[in-house]
């Protein structure tokens, strides 16, 4: 009998999640007896995800792997799913502990927080002002990364975080917010956008303002979307983990749980070709280190995701 694993994403149509779906399908093929249901709302709202989850419960899927729009709001719906015998994990953007059996971080949050500030600092040997362009003010993962980043800030002498603004993962809002940053901080040297929508918009705004070379846009982005901006010099480098691997791993973990594995602190869950993930006290685990892209390798990866 085939097992139904639902891959619930923040919103359909986002390149990052489309890539994750590719990985999930790859896992399904590898496993043979798995059907992956790739679904999600069309806008990044918690209510939309709840409706999707409710219909998945009704379909009696075997597992739900969700990248949440809201840490807390999904908990009651996911709890209901678990009560009806469905395995629930979160990946990418997590759900509060009560609402899932484990959470798969693409990488560990401290590593990411360090990585994004390091990318900026590496280009600024004398230090300078940097600003953060985040997604929505409610994004779980964004907030954690920014927090982690601020923790390690003292390690980077002379780097000064002057502002955090929110582009809501909307291209135009991010663009406008970036314009505001450029206006307000004439000495701005770098913009860190740990969001794939924001980083593209910020790079575009910097290019349009004629600040290419003066302001470096960095953060987390997709090679396919950033290739042009790396070439133009608006972005020297950026990082991302491989979303294909992430979707693949989430599917593998869900399958492992369906097969009887138990998610508890210290347990190791199988992730196929990605090896195994070890859970910490919060039942969280990290998949791999983020990977840096720059002019030397971005072309090659832009064909993949």
């Amino acid at each position, binding site marked *: 009998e085939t097992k139904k694993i639902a891959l619930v994403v923040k919103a*359909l*149509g*986002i*390149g990052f999640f*489309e890539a994750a779906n590719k990985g999930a399908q790859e896992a399904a093929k590898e496993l043979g007896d798995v059907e992956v249901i790739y679904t999600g709302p*069309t*806008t990044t709202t918690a209510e939309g995800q709840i409706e999707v989850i409710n219909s998945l419960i009704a379909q009696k899927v075997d597992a739900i792997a969700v990248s949440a729009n809201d840490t807390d709001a999904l908990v009651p719906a996911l709890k209901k799913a678990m009560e009806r015998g469905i395995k629930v994990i979160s990946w990418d953007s997590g759900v509060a502990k009560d609402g899932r059996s484990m959470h798969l971080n693409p990488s560990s949050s401290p590593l990411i927080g360090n990585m994004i500030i390091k990318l900026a600092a590496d280009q600024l040997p004398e230090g300078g002002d940097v600003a953060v362009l985040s997604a929505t*003010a409610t994004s779980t993962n964004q907030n954690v990364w920014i927090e982690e980043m601020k923790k390690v800030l003292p390690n980077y002498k002379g780097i000064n975080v002057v502002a955090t*603004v*929110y582009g809501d993962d*909307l*291209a*135009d809002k991010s*663009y*406008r*917010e970036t*314009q*505001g*940053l450029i*206006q*307000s901080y004439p000495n701005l040297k770098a913009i860190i956008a740990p969001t794939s929508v924001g980083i*593209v*918009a910020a790079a*575009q705004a910097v290019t*349009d303002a004629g600040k290419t070379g003066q302001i470096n846009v960095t953060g987390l982005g997709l090679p*396919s*979307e950033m*290739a*042009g*901006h790396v070439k133009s010099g608006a972005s020297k480098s950026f990082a991302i983990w491989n979303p294909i691997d992430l979707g693949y791993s989430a599917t593998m973990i869900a399958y492992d749980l369906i097969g009887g594995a138990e998610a508890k602190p210290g347990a190791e869950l199988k992730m196929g070709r990605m090896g195994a993930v070890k859970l910490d006290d919060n039942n969280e685990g990290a998949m791999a280190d983020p990977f840096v892209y720059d002019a030397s390798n971005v072309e090659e990866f*832009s064909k993949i995701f």
Partner: protein
Amino acid sequence: MMAKLLKNREILLVFAIIALVFLIALRFPGFVEPANLARVYNDTSILIILALGQMAVILTRCIDLSMAANLALSGIVAAMINAAFPGVPIPLLILAVVGLGAVLGSINGLLVWKLDIPPIVVTLGTLTIFRGSIFLLSNGAWINAHQMSDAFKALPRASFAGFAVLSWLSVMAIIAVYLLMTRTPIGRAFFAVGGNPHAAVYTGIDVGRTRFLAYCLSGALAGLAGYLWVSRYAVAYVDIAAGFELDIIAACVIGGISIAGGIGSVGGAVLGSLFLGVIKNALPVINISPFAQLAISGTVIIIAVAVNARTESRKGRVILKKAEAV
């Protein structure tokens, strides 16, 4: 004289905008530098173009909630054509997109004209249908900067006589719509149909057809804005300009265009858009918490409506005036 000037909505708005800019300049002098003001105008251009179309529709006592969705659909089609056939010359592409926008607008217009469905219902329906069509068309996928040709992205950014082409396009749209509204029968028919649709029939104006044309105009302008939006932000996806319809309507309302139809002007639409544009651009610059922005624009809209209502509410006829003179 002064009192009379103050009653004029457009002049009041001009003062309000100047006062606003002045206040911002107190906290951030760089805001009033000509280059920055030009940038603010440029940033507001798309809103102006859209508000012009919405104005025509509102004048005929209708409303177009589907403008932002039309923009998104036209924009994404422009991006898809460009991505698939980078060789298509940009002017031709723009023409095609304006045509597409007009066709989408004409769907609204036909439903309002031929089936007499209330405009708000029609455009509420087409709003979701247009957005959904984008999803079906693109499968939800984004079209990113690197998929667009350089010429596609360059046009709105190109500079001509010191201003961006985007700004020039909006100026041209303003002039064209101004001529249309004041000097052509169809423009006057917009006013007549909104002011008194019943009477318009008696003067030989086809009310439904006039509304249809207003929707075609708003659709065409939305199509133009679609290309400009997508090329300017260099990205196209299902949700671009989501919720922007309310900004467009707010701009019209601030500009004194009566939601009940028949009252309004091109100047009002432009100034209303600029007012919103200045606020939107100023808030991040003067370091107001991003969380307060929404509340502030809400408050501004309410104040603007209240002020407009004040200037609009006339005293009744003065019957006693002559008696006093005796």
